[in-house]
């Protein structure tokens, strides 16, 4: 972990690979364009490497709260049909996706 934090040469993003992780297929035009733009942005982001943050706690949320509970009482939710109404393809109350198993 510390090795990663002190690494100075982290900016080289393999855009096509990361896009695949994010479940997107980029076009032949997008790959070099994004590669260039994102390296430029990461170069700016690297200014953060100047700061010594070893003893600083991370902030994930502006107001770190304790657990938030509500009374455990049943309430009306969205009706099944209303929740599914925006789906591009449904059958018998289910979402339809391409076949997974042969």
């Amino acid at each position, binding site marked *: *972990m510390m090795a*990663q*934090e002190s*690494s100075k040469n*982290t900016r080289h*993003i393999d*855009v096509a690979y*990361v*896009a*695949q*992780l*994010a*479940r*997107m*297929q*980029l*076009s032949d035009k*997008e790959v070099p364009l*994004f590669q260039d*733009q*994102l390296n*430029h*942005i*990461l170069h*700016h*982001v*690297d*200014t*953060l*490497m100047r*700061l010594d*943050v070893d003893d*600083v*706690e*991370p*902030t*994930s*949320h*502006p*107001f770190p*709260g304790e657990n*938030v509970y*509500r009374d455990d009482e049943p309430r009306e939710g*969205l009706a099944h049909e*209303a*929740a599914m*109404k*925006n*789906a*591009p*393809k449904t059958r018998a109350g289910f*979402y339809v*996706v*391409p*076949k*997974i198993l042969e």
Partner: protein
Amino acid sequence: MSSLSALTIHELIDLLDRGVCSSEDVVTEVLSAIDARDERVGAYLDYDAEGALAAARSADDARSKGAERILPGIPIGIKDVLNVKGDTCRCGSRILEGYVSPYDATAVARLRQAGALFLGRLNMDEFAMGSTNENSAFQITHNPWNLEHVPGGSSGGSAAAVAAGEAVAALGTDTGGSIRQPASFCGCVGLKPTYGRVSRFGATAFASSLDQIGPITRCVRDAALLLGIMAGRDPLDSTTVEVPVPNYQEALADDLKGMKLGIPREYFVEGIDKEVEQSIRKAIRLCGDLGAEIVEISLPHTEYAVAVYYILATAEASANLARFDGVRYGARDEGHDPMDLYVKTRARYFGPEVKRRIILGTYVLSSGYYDAYYRRGQKVRTLIRRDFEQAFQECDAILAPVAPTTAYRLGEKIEDPLQMYLGDIFTIPASLAGMCGLSVPCGFSDAGLPIGLQIIGDAFREDRVLRVGYAYEQSTEWHKRIPPIRDDEGGR
């Protein structure tokens, strides 16, 4: 009498109370302003004239039977990212083509409960990612003050509609400046509440630790009124905080006696437009004349804010936008297996800025880079938050520019995302720290473009920023100017 579409909520409530006009009259005039101008401005993605008129008639009917509502049939425009039951909600994106909201966002429900009606969907950068509205998948919105310029973003449609007289007030969302910056560019009042002040339920999530819903209005008093209605704990959003909601309108006063206002030296640096700086300096002097004590303060980590923001906001966005997969809602491209379907759908229907940010966010969270980027970003966020905590030991509110420049020309920044991001340098820090911020008109450039004064307040001290904004506004005339596109309505 000047056009009803040009009035503030408070002025309209007064006319409605006195029976001078009906809600139907108000909606009719707002619709005719849209008719006359929106072809040039492009603020609305769509609107339902018949539905709005019917809702107005029913509000009039209720009023005639003695119903007392805070917003009796007042029409409010809604940014396309907020759910209004039965209306489309596409977030400026083709991936949500055809989506119809099955429920109201809590902020919308509270305004509805108060009597408001909603007449249309306002343009925005796709999924609120952008500072100019040029990232909308559907149309360009033009700045009503100069149609060759952008309205700002991402709530650009909301600000443009209010400035153009096409909405009495509007709701926007602000993640890194998306209410304050377009309000500044369009000469409106824009309020980003403290994180946790207004429920995010029903606001399509971009960056969940930053997003807030807030009003864009013609005057500070209207912003105070709308905030008071929307604010407070919501069981449907566990990040709303149990802090009492004060009467924000009672906090408004004509002077600033006893208030200490901080001027952060890091906000007056090279790169800030001379005309902007002059207007802000003049506004600061006026606040001094109104009785405030002006003190210099320091927010030393300001220069790191944009970098932190583009790590954390994109990381959160990459997770939030994973839900758009072509299965549960919106558009879909068929595939030979589910993976193929996801990949094709997302590639085809997300626009370039959304793709860029998803890739960046996925990258900073990916194995090997998480600590170097994401975790480091979270740590520097702590430093930025401490800057503000320290500053609010020394002052009651902070005065600063909203943006380093006036509204960009259309197309000026679209090719260079980093330059676009750096334009948000003065709004992003308060967002990262979870503070509240208000944008109030404070001047115009020689070219006639509005300039905004930003008033940043400590967490849950919207009462203070509204008080400062109100006192300043009442002693100036900037908010009374109207853009040339409204010449057809006659003076106010």
